[in-house]
């Protein structure tokens, strides 16, 4: 009794989170000011974190909130506050590509949903229970250690590039 009620609660929460994420994404297109767009994106990311938590991948939910909301979006909000809010891009939020963009959007949705709707993979018995940080860490450092090391190279390259961009500007 209680088990089934909890299972249904999970489904209801999943629906609520999915609807929230979708509304946040749609608001990003409609809203005019960058700060409001950033707030909508943050709410979408938090809802996605909730979905990851419901799916049982808690460490990805934590990464989602820590890295995306905590680092990337805070950085973005700082930049929005640094720049001029009375920008011409705010008066006229949509470019000339509005009509082709919307047509392409509808076609893309049509093709992608048509391709994935009937061919969703069936769950393998007994394994779709979610997995913990321990299995993730072991798999990461046993099988995917090369990729892990390559991310450090990427991060160093990004740091060097960011510093180089700023220095180049100072010299020029």
């Amino acid at each position, binding site marked *: 009794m209680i088990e089934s009620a909890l299972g249904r609660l999970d489904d209801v929460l*999943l629906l609520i989170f999915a609807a929230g994420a979708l509304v946040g994404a749609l608001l990003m297109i409609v809203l005019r000011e960058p700060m409001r767009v950033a707030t909508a994106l943050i709410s979408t990311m938090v809802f996605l974190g909730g979905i990851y938590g419901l799916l049982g991948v808690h460490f990805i939910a934590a990464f989602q909130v820590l890295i995306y909301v905590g680092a990337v979006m805070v950085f973005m909000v700082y930049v929005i506050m640094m720049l001029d809010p009375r920008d011409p891009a705010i008066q006229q939020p949509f470019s000339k590509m509005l009509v082709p963009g919307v047509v*392409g959007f509808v076609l893309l949705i049509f093709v992608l949903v048509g391709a*994935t709707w009937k061919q969703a993979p069936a769950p393998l018995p007994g394994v779709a229970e979610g997995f913990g940080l321990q299995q993730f860490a072991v798999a990461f450092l046993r099988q995917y250690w090369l990729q892990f090391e390559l991310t450090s190279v990427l991060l160093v390259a990004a740091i060097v590039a960011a510093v180089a961009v700023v220095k180049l500007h100072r010299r020029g």
Partner: protein
Amino acid sequence: MDKVQLLLSLAIALFSIGLLGVIVRRNLLVMLMCMELMLNGVNLSLVTFAHQMGEMVGAVLVFLIFVVATAEIAVAIPIVLLLVKRKHSLDLGAYMDLKG
């Protein structure tokens, strides 16, 4: 409606809305944020498939996408700041002379 279908449809919707935002919006920062939304849609599909198949590789890919997204923002934001300093505008129309 199946849970996997719901999540995959949401992932498709997020990715497409992000792409639409990159195409139709004029503000540089809003376009960057729409690119983040596209990455989030891809992440959701990867997590859904990893959950469905019980495979760890999806979670590993999500982690790598986190790193790439962070690096992308760390490089893109200084570039946007320099562009704005030079042209005094976030409007994409001001950068038409960058067209090849």
